[in-house]
């Protein structure tokens, strides 16, 4: 199986705090990680490789330091990785980004043959859009299945997956090639062995530039992005609630219930 995994390097948003004085994000000291959902995509890919044979290629668009994310993927079982980087790419929204990724796939297929399966996380934990996977599938005119919790099997021309759909699960078969976006699942990402970290420490990571994928200028970066950010701000949560702090926890509990019964809440 020829599998491609799309990963993004993101700030660990669970570590981000808001400066209480300036009300801005404190980004200093926040570690960069492989997007959580993408690491589940990689784990699925590596398990499929272990079961069916083949190779796992990782692509990641970002600045040069995103090579660290690719190295991490190599240490966890990917066979090769490419960084997609260039100042012309910056400012790309999801439509432009997915176009760049789709062009990159076409470029890599010249070298490694057609990919059977393209795996992505269901969304990145910084942008939280979940749009790049399906938009890539549309650029490439191939099948997509989103919110997948498990790849069940792969046959010659189709993949069968389990899809989360709110109050139900669906078993869906998609013709190959297909883009599959994954949620967190039972297939927990593995820890790399010490040896694999050492092995991939100085692995060469080729860089795909705008010139390599013949994009022209109109469809990438700010020019190729139909959405524009008008402003950003930090959310405010201010509710004047009742704080209950009686002499004992029991009294507090009783006080809560009496306040709530006054409002017919219990």
């Amino acid at each position, binding site marked *: 199986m020829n599998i491609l995994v799309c990963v993004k390097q993101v700030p660990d948003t669970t570590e981000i705090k808001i400066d209480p004085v300036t009300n801005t994000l404190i980004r200093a000291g926040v570690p960069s990680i492989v997007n959580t959902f993408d690491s589940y995509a990689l784990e699925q890919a590596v398990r499929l490789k272990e079961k069916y044979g083949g190779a796992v290629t990782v692509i990641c668009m970002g600045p040069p330091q995103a090579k660290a994310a690719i190295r991490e993927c190599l240490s966890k079982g990917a066979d090769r990785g490419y960084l997609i980087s260039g100042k012309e790419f910056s400012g790309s929204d999801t439509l432009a980004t997915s176009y760049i990724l789709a062009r990159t796939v076409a470029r890599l297929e010249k070298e490694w043959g057609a990919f059977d399966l393209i795996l992505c996380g269901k969304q990145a934990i910084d942008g939280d859009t979940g749009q790049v996977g399906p938009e890539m599938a549309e650029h490439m005119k191939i099948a997509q299945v989103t919110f997948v919790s498990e790849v069940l099997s792969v046959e010659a021309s189709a993949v069968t997956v389990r899809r989360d759909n709110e109050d139900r699960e669906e078993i869906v078969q998609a013709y190959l090639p297909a883009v599959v976006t994954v949620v967190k699942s039972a297939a927990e990402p593995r820890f790399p062995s010490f040896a694999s970290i050492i092995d991939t420490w100085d692995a060469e990571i080729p860089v795909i530039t705008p010139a390599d994928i013949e994009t022209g200028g109109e469809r990438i970066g700010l020019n190729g992005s139909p959405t524009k950010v008008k402003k950003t701000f930090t959310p405010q949560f201010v509710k004047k609630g009742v704080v209950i702090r009686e002499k004992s926890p029991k009294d507090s509990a009783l006080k809560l219930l009496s306040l709530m019964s006054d409002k017919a*809440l219990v």
Partner: protein
Amino acid sequence: MFEEYKNLWVYIEVMDGKAKNVGLELLNPGRRLADQNAEKLVAVVVGNDVEHIAKQAIAYGADEAIIVDSDIFDYYDTDLFTSAFESLILKYKPSTLLIGATNNGRDIGPRLACRLKTGLTADCTGLDIDSESGNIAWTRPAFGGNLMATILCPNTRPQIGTVRPGVFKKGTKDDTRSGRIIREDIVIPESVRKTKLLEVIREAAGAAVNLEDAQIIVSGGRGLGKAENFSYVRELAAALGATVGSSRAAVDAGWIPYAHQVGQTGKTVMPKLYFACGISGAIQHLAGMSSSDKIIAINKDPNAPIFKVADYGIVGDLFEVLPVLTTEIKRMRGA
């Protein structure tokens, strides 16, 4: 620049023969935005035997409804539904399309926006009109809810957004409202299908935790200290007839499965009552539950951010508070 693009569309997603709530919710802000821009509010329903849903949408405020009604649309399929919307949009040229940010909404949204080469804003929690340009101002959380961004789509039409369920309340239903129902017979060859639905599992393990529709949720977090202590939360939930939720910390610690997780990377909930027990209230958690009608927080730390969103906050030891609540509620309900 976009004279030919008119009217605001709301996609009314149908599941099991019923309109998803979020579609009906969106008619409420949709009405406001359409009125502000002097446009019609149009409900779009794609499904099988859906005329009654078109009427329901009109009762909730749509001026008219376009329906695509055929047995091939009985269950959601990415390619069939995208093609149907593509035909409708090319024919009618709406200025704006609102889609509920359900899993299927977030599946079709990007596929469709990419086909039309237009902008899509994901999982919006605020909808307004940008006073300078007249574009829709889509406001949405990013960075795990730490940051809000307002996005415009100034140069392409339609402008499309997926909108988070539960953020907007449904308007008042008025069954006397009337509006035109336009039937569109769209023929799409089966060959556009690239996927096949083999099975639907309604009793799935994760699905049994239906947090989205719960009226009361009792959630536990890191303050519980260990997996066994979730019994405190479960017992209160049982007394209240509530569903059990949790913070991400408790899921990451392995105390409870991911299906229970409330927050930015879990479920977004909006029950009538939300009990947060031993949950500090990281912004990611608040992003998933702050739309609840009434929030009750129980936490030892008086400075915990959860108290900023709580209607009632008990500063105290949950291991002492919860059993009293459980006993008293059982007694009240039994009486």
